[in-house]
């Protein structure tokens, strides 16, 4: 099964990157201006659908969504529960 961080990375590249910029697991997405605060809502929705979880709004902060690695840490908190 594909690792979660690869799934998230692929999704971010497919949905939010217009050019051929290289995006890695630790590339800043929110503070780097790749995903804005409005688009973060669709990224959160993707994660919730994909992993059948519900991320509370107060946990879906720009800091928690800032890199693929951080997103995976956040999602794992809810997947395990």
């Amino acid at each position, binding site marked *: 099964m594909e690792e979660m961080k690869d799934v998230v990375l692929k999704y971010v590249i497919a949905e939010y990157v217009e050019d051929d910029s290289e995006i890695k697991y630790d590339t800043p997405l929110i503070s780097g*201006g790749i995903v804005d*605060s409005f*688009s973060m*809502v669709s990224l959160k*929705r*993707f994660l919730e*659908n994909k992993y059948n979880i519900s991320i509370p709004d107060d946990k879906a902060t720009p*800091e928690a969504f800032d890199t693929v690695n951080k997103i995976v840490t956040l999602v794992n908190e809810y997947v395990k529960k």
Partner: protein
Amino acid sequence: MGSYNERIKDFDWSISEKELGYKPGDIINIGWYCSDRICNMGKADKLGLIWEGQGGVEKRYTYNDIRLATNAIGAFLRGLGIKPEDRVCLFMDKIPELYLGFLGILKTGAIAQPLFSAFGDESLFIRLENAQTRAIITQKKHAPKVRKILDKMPWVEFLIIVDQDPGKPLQQREIAMNLEQLPKMEEFEIYPTYAESPSVLHYTSGTTGQPKGVKHVHYSLIAQYLTSKWVLDLQDDDIYWCTADPGWVTGTSYGIIGAFSNGVTQCVLDAGFSAEAWYRFIEKNKITMWYSAPTAIRSLMKAGNEIIKKFDLSSLRHLASVGEPLNSEAVIWSEKVFGKPFLDTYWQTETGAIMISNYPGMKIKPGSMGKPFPGITATVIDPENFEPFKESGKIGLIALKPGWPSMMRMYWNNEETYRKKFKNGWYLPGDRSSIDNEGYFWFVGRDDDVINTGGHLVSPFEVESALLEHPAVAESAVVAKPDFVNMEVVKAFVTLKPGFIASKDLDLEIMNFVRKKLSPLAMPQEIEFVDSLPKTRSGKIMRRILHAKEWGEEIGDTSTLEND
């Protein structure tokens, strides 16, 4: 500004004209006033722009650097054959080329058309088609969105890319413009624009119809200069930070024109939002004047007070806010944590400059918009007869007496809609408010269905039109939904075509469809799949009913509602 009450006595815009050394009938070119004039005042070596990009990369420009760079860009554009009044679009992140390109365009006499870099291809096309834009200046990261629609835009002659990789081939109509490689231009013949020469074309959304191009002229400088000086209280030694993106009017009126015409040092942070990054930026640059927006302020509130203690923010002298009403909690919070309140300012794309505001030294009533700027006649009128209310406290339409310098001159190719903005001799911005017995204005809300999300106006019509292009969507209605941070966000009610079933995946697919077509701002943050939409007997969708439900308000008259 000194005493507000003294300033409103015998106010005349000639105060600003005299300070700028302008006499009616003279040449007036914003590009010159924002660069050459400051150099001529002996400030050529003063820092005009401190820019920080991703990863902390920094660039600094003195006023002489700004003068030379804007000359160079002007010469480059003129070399391509760009003529006065041609529309030149700026489609970029907040990089130095955006700020310098804006002034360079104005120096040639062409019209600057800034567009928000997060716009999707459809939003872009509608605005470029309406303006019949001749050239687009962009970055390689945004070029693919333009290329996607370039075949449909034969009027676009040049796609100018400011960061093209050397050796990488350019496509049809593309041309590279690397600012650092442009020859330094000591002398450039600035086009002699006059007061009524067009300068800027900003696009704004309405309830119905396509976005409107708001045409401004070079004389707008007179209002933008003085409001920056009196409301933002810009002083010679200020380090100023306007957080707005020049894709929108605040970013040009106060993020470029107001700042540079006053000769202050301004800072730009071209990075996504985070409370820590913003506080660090203030501390690092010793920002003294900070002009931001309620959405950002509420996001900072959400990040908590503990984080503030990690930074030295004692340089802050004056704070102001624009974009949507600033709630009293935010004013009180800022006074508590920064030691000074954010002062709310009220204006819009069409007014070009601040109309109603709170002023340094004037009593602040948290939650109030403040009082009209000197020289601005503002009131609240009865929506029935368009006459000003005689009593205080009544809720009506905000009305402004036309004639201030930065008033829009026209909606581009749309005179009919322009004329509709005036009633009984008043210009109506489309907002409702009341005035208390001390003359303070209190914002109530929009007078139409336009959604104000994070300080940006989104047209429900545009979102509904985009939704209908999705293969699964049969009908849609779009309304504002309350939101703590953004004040309002877009919510869509959708009925599906036969054969489609509502699901979480379809919900996400439709969200992303709108985001890419229009912009992240316009993407519905929530989609509710419904069996039918409330309609009048004549078949018109009643957004009002859906809006009232979202806001927990009375639904009101439903006598025209179609029976289900």
